[in-house]
């Protein structure tokens, strides 16, 4: 045991330091959340409901719990947080506003129209907030579409990869446990809005496991067999005077070439007004800044 502790001493010290840093940040995070108590200033919007479970995928108790959670998170984030589940084809509705909208765009049109028509926003009509629309009805493409729309401060805070991450969180359990998925939507949004948001990096959940596994495999590979010993000679061990003598050592400039290329603006670094995706359709569908599963 003693030898084990000695061997892994530094690894555990690093782990403890990381855990300590995490705890410190988390405490700061909680402190910030507790201290915040935004007052809603949008008096035009009269919609007080935040959970519209038209697809009836939530129980009454779950709806109530979500409403309570949203109410708390809205005060902490200063944003309206709306959830709509539907089970109706939106083609007709969407084409009223955008005649050329593709089937993947219907939920986006619905979300945007809902937001605008109801004057949603915590600070003002069409102001700060987010809306998640999950339509359980399969459109012409045979897929179920979801759209996450950000507005005002939420729009400023959210980059494409953040939207992807939020939708990943929702999609990881929406099929088997919609309540849990929508709770994740609310909590992820709350968490994102309270973070300092310096790094807009989305690390897939499998990456830490993969790094752990690769480290363990390398470790096993290096220690599976005992080594005879280590080489302790260098290139200069048998060199008289310890170094070579250079009679010629010239580096003469010949020519130079310059090439140029246009930098394509990448969507991954920019802000996005929302991200759509489909579920239950067997994958292969992309919309907005999202991905499919």
């Amino acid at each position, binding site marked *: 045991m003693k030898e084990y502790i000695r061997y*892994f001493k530094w690894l555990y010290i690093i*782990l403890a330091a*990381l*855990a300590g840093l995490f705890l410190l940040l988390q405490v700061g995070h909680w402190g910030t959340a507790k201290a915040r108590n935004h007052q809603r200033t949008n008096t035009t919007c009269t919609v007080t409901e935040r959970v519209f479970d038209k697809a009836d995928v939530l129980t009454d108790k779950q709806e109530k719990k979500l409403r309570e959670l949203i109410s708390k998170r809205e005060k902490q984030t200063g944003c309206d947080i709306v959830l709509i589940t539907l089970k109706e084809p939106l083609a007709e509705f969407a084409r009223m506003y955008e005649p050329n909208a593709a089937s993947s765009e219907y939920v986006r049109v619905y979300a945007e129209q809902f937001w605008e028509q109801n004057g949603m926003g915590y600070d003002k009509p069409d102001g700060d907030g987010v809306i998640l629309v999950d339509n359980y009805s399969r459109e012409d493409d045979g897929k179920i579409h979801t759209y996450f729309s950000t507005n005002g401060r939420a729009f400023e805070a959210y980059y494409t990869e953040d939207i992807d991450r939020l939708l990943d969180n929702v999609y990881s359990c929406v099929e088997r446990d919609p309540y849990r998925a929508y709770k994740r939507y609310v909590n992820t949004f709350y968490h994102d809005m309270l*973070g300092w948001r310096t790094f807009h990096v989305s690390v897939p959940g499998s990456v830490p496991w993969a790094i752990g596994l690769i480290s363990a495999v390398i470790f096993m590979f290096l220690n599976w067999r005992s080594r005879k010993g280590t080489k302790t000679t260098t290139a*200069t061990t048998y060199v008289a005077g310890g170094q070579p*003598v250079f009679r010629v050592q010239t*580096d003469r400039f010949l020519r130079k070439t310059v090439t140029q290329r246009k930098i394509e603006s990448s969507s991954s670094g920019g802000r996005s007004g929302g991200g759509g995706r489909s579920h239950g359709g067997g994958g292969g569908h992309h919309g907005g800044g999202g991905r499919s599963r």
Partner: protein
Amino acid sequence: MIYKCKNCGGNAIYAPEKGRMYCPHCESEDSEEQNPDDSLERCVNCGAPLEITDYTSACKCQHCGAYLIFNERVEGVYEPHLVLPFRIGRQAAAAALDQEFSRRIFAPSDFMSAKSLQKMEGTYVPFWLYDYDADYDYAGEGTKVRTWRSGNTEYTETSYFDVQRRMNVDFNRIPVDASYAMEDGAMDLMEPYDYQALMDFAPKYMSGFYGEVYNQKAKELEERALQKARLSSEQLMQASLTGYVTMRAYRKNLKLNGRGEHYALLPVWQYFYRYKDQVYEYHVNGQTGKVVGVTPVSRAKVLLYAASVFAVATAACQIAVQILDIL
């Protein structure tokens, strides 16, 4: 030949810790006298028959324990030019070995207690030490790359250089063991020896140890020395070609001119341990104490430690991701 103590007639041996001849019977120092009687068949001390190989130059009589040196194998063409006397004695070598074992944490837990010592002996291993003058002529084209951005355009500037090098290196005493009994890889790992302590050969340094004459001639083993010289030359040349992103050689001429070779005896402690029906051989550099040899590995221990690495690395990454998330 045998060295005897003038005071008590006992067998005087070379004591590495003292750096001089010593009689373990009466504890006299530098009291040795050479008895030149010689025989390859019988011990000149007790007359018991000897079992030696074609290359043995010094051994211990298994009957009376006297250390014998065979005149005809340390004279004439077999007379070493140089010898590096043992600096580390039996106890210090065993301590170095124990220290090394304690560092090898993947050895089975019972290895230290269950292993049994089969044999241990100090041996003067025959080496050829080669001297070379290296003349390396190199020419190539190197590139340096600089990139910068202006607006939405990225520029890449590649500069080309004509690189010329002429390097001279004096290699002194590149060692190659000349013993069939010693594994080449193990002997290479024994290096380096501190050549400052090399001395002109005197047979008395062999008293108390085993020894061999060279098993192969210098010419037969030269390729190994040349390989070492080539590798070092290449590394030294590469070290001078820094600062370039790419380097394409269009001329590389390395000439190695031999300046001669020396026949030397270098000190090695050999230990043989038996553990679970297998014999493990270890070599300890008789001058520096460096240990070379394979220890058995407890696979269960490795798996257990790997599981810890997996757990800790995964946890550390998870926490790092969470921190990034907060930040």
